[in-house]
């Protein structure tokens, strides 16, 4: 247990290296505007801060320390050069409202990235504005809405979403003012086309689809689905979070999608940062171009310009005060240039090879696959319902026990369709040794579950902390540390 930084704080301690020693008067600001008590920020030395956060960091599992096969999240290696270059002064020091002329270097990188993303997605235009996958979805659905609105096609008030979809999909549709209609999934993992056909129609604004889906399989009837939706006047939204599976092999635009988002923090390896920042650029087909969000970056005879709402009258508008997560886009650009044309396809090849290898070996080891006769894409689902029935050991228990053995757990209990599920995504950057180690750990746990289930049910045992009480966390809500001594007067 590491003491809270507040518990290491002593009133009156000043980190002098960060201090401006002058006495600065505030005599021109009337008292009514001023703060009377100091905020409860830590009063620690530089060394205390460095030590505290260094030690905290060591409590994390991360890509740089552990295999992290979190399904749907594409936890692949983050090349260190991306971090270095994004922090170059010229890039990191420029003010977002400075004239375009002072940012030609950055803008050229971002423009290049747009071109690369257009090509791999097979779309006609790309906007880099959205700051994460969910905002990319929002952007896409808002554009679909703007498109229908522009044509006065007002009756379309539903977005169709397969029941296997990521939670952001339905949540997004609602944020855009749509009703959500779920489409069931067949036992083989494909969308139930008949069910889709039954609901698609004049009220359909669009369909959101992830392909490969979050079930770890490729939707084989994607062309038929596209035709169904298009024929009914709806548009197709592609959730590109799983692009790692098909990068350089299949272009979503050619599957028939009208708009897609890409999760650069997944496929393009920008760091996940303990929960972001990400970047969720959108690509669109011709007919949606006018609606793209601003700002947009365009090029003309070697000069890069940022377009605003006044240049793009039909734009759905702005998604952030400035230019989205520019520093993340820069990292993605660097990554894309490192991979290059051939490297793209190799990502999909090896992400798929690793997933299928793991799937084959785990299957041989006796684990049950949710979609047995399907190819794994870049990920696959294993269900531990048999283990649970026989030993009482749940997917959650397996997950915690994996931590003990030095592996981050796969995504658990998502997608919700599959009971006791593990969504496993090894990514292309993991080595065979690491995969074999993981397989070994799974086998060990399986054995432990049979022989000493309590050991597994009470895992983890080897971490700095044992299993946490989530129920208490929610019931006896404690989300802010309270200084028992109260705020200090200034």
């Amino acid at each position: 247990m590491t003491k809270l930084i507040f518990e290491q704080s002593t009133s009156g301690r000043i980190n002098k290296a960060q201090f401006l020693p002058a006495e600065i008067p505030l005599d021109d600001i009337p008292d009514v505007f001023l703060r009377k008590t100091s905020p409860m920020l830590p009063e620690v030395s530089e060394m205390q801060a460095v030590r505290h956060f260094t030690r905290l960091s060591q409590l994390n599992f991360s890509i740089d320390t552990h295999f992290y096969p979190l399904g749907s999240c594409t936890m692949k290696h983050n090349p260190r050069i991306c971090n270095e270059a994004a922090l170059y002064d010229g890039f990191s020091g420029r003010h977002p409202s400075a004239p375009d002329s002072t940012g030609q270097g950055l803008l050229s990188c971002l423009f290049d990235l747009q071109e690369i993303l257009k090509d791999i997605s097979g779309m006609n235009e790309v906007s880099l504005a959205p700051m994460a996958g969910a905002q990319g979805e929002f952007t896409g659905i808002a554009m679909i809405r703007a498109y229908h609105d522009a044509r006065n096609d007002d009756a379309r008030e539903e977005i169709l979403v397969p029941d296997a979809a990521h939670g952001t999909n339905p949540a997004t549709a609602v944020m855009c003012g749509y009703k959500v209609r779920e489409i069931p999934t067949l036992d083989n993992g494909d969308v139930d086309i008949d069910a889709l056909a039954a609901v698609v129609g004049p009220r359909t604004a669009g369909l959101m689809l992830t392909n490969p889906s979050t079930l770890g399989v490729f939707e084989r009837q994607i062309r038929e689905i596209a035709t169904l939706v298009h024929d009914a006047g709806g548009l197709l939204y592609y959730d590109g979070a799983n692009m790692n599976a098909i990068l350089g092999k299949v272009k979503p635009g050619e599957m028939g999608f009208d708009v897609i988002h890409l999760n650069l923090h997944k496929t393009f390896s920008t760091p996940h940062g303990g929960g972001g920042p990400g970047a969720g650029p959108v690509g669109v087909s011709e007919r949606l171009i006018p609606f793209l969000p601003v700002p947009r970056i365009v090029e003309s005879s070697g000069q890069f310009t940022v377009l605003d709402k006044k240049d793009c009258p039909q734009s759905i508008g702005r998604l952030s005060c400035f230019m989205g997560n520019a520093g993340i886009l820069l990292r993605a650009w660097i990554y894309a240039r490192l991979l290059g044309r051939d490297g793209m396809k190799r990502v999909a090849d090896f992400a798929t090879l690793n997933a299928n290898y793991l799937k084959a070996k785990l299957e041989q080891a006796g684990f049950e696959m949710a979609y047995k006769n399907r190819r794994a894409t870049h990920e696959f689902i294993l269900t531990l319902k048999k283990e649970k029935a026989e030993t009482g050991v749940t997917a959650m228990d397996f997950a915690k026990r994996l931590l003990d053995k030095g592996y981050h757990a796969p995504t658990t209990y998502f997608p919700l369709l599959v009971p006791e599920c593990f969504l496993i995504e090894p990514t292309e950057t993991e080595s065979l040794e690491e995969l074999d180690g993981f397989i070994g750990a799974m086998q060990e746990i399986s054995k432990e579950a049979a022989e000493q289930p309590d050991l597994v049910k009470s895992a983890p045992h080897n971490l700095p902390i044992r299993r946490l009480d989530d129920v208490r966390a929610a019931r006896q809500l404690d989300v802010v540390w309270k200084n028992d001594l109260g705020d200090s007067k200034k």
Partner: protein
Amino acid sequence: MSFIPHTEDEIRQMLNAIGVDRIDELFDEIPAELINEKLDYVPAAMNEAGIRRLSRQRAENDGHHINFIGAGAYEHHIPAAVWQIATRGEFYSAYTPYQAEASQGTLQLLYEYQSMMASLTGMEVSNASLYEGASALAEAVLMAVRAQREKQRILMPETIHPGYRETTETIVKNQGIVLSSISYSGITGTIDLEQLGKEITDDVAALVIPQPNYFGALEAVDELTNLAHERGCLVIAVVNPVSLAILKAPGEWGDKGADIVVGEGQPLGIPLSSGGPYFGFMCCTQKLIRQMPGRLIGRTVDADGKQGFALTLQAREQHIRRSKATSNICTNQGLMVTAATLYMSLMGPAGIEQVAKASHANTRLLVEKLTAIDGVDVVFNSPFFHECVLRINAPMEDLIPAMTVQGVIAGKALFADYADLHDCLLVCATELRTEEEMDVYAMHLQRFVSKHQLETP
């Protein structure tokens, strides 16, 4: 180039285990006509030495200017330890702390962050971040509307950053929410209380109050808050976190304090980076916690009764609640929050207070120096924090590029957003601006204005 470790031998061994001959076979469920490996617009691979060279060249092109713009993003000193520690692999390359036991570092840090933000804003709770300031305001608006049920109107003063207004518009408009403008006084540069009095009717869910406002001026937050509360309206405060070291915390505005507080976290240790990644913060009253979007970390205990931290109230979020979630947000701005937490810890309350005071004093000094120039005047008479609007008797469209050529980014011109301020410039001098730099600015501005002075202003 790529980061794939497989050797030919290993590939073969793996294909054997799967029972196929070639990797291509693994894609055999994809309709053949969809396979397209042509990538004409993706350049060939570079190695690291090559991309470093290229990135350096491009970065060298970019802004080593002296910057006098604030307007929503501020150039403050960032202690060296902030990014050296934030980019440690364990922070940099982890993801959302779903497995709490293997993520105590990130979780405890986020709990500490929430505590710091709550205290800074004077609110009861804080979430663990949103994308950035403007979209955080949009989320606050949606949250207010949810909390206020039937009410669909939001009062948005024109003194809010135009980018916040536009972003909020984009995000909330599809849900039928109406953003009503409140104009500002041409004298004070703050919300026009008279118009507000008229607009603030029963159907208003919330009043948005920026402090300091876009013009740098200080709003009468106590009166505004009380007025809003009297009319059954929630108050959404939009604040600069650094200013809160000296300005009254929103939790103490008026009699009851603001209900929701949002803002741009960038001033807390995040580099300008042409606009991002930054992070949005959001704090609110305990009462509204279940309406709050975004992640929330709670302190709890483990099986041995030891303190630990975990994601909590996840039932508000999209991955559980799906279409009924408080927001679609999933990935947020974790790394930026890590940096901000380090920043606040390294600076401490005294350090941030000095930054706020020095930025204020520097802007005063800058304004003094610039208004000493004939044809340059202060526009509004309110006290300001660290930004100020100046009217300049010279063609603004030419002024900015001319100053840029001299290495000075003069400020944010207001003509695009405020017709009546077409000849005005919003300037800012943080603690990093030196007097010499201000003198350079003043010298060039003086030259420009004397050369380009408009006829009889």
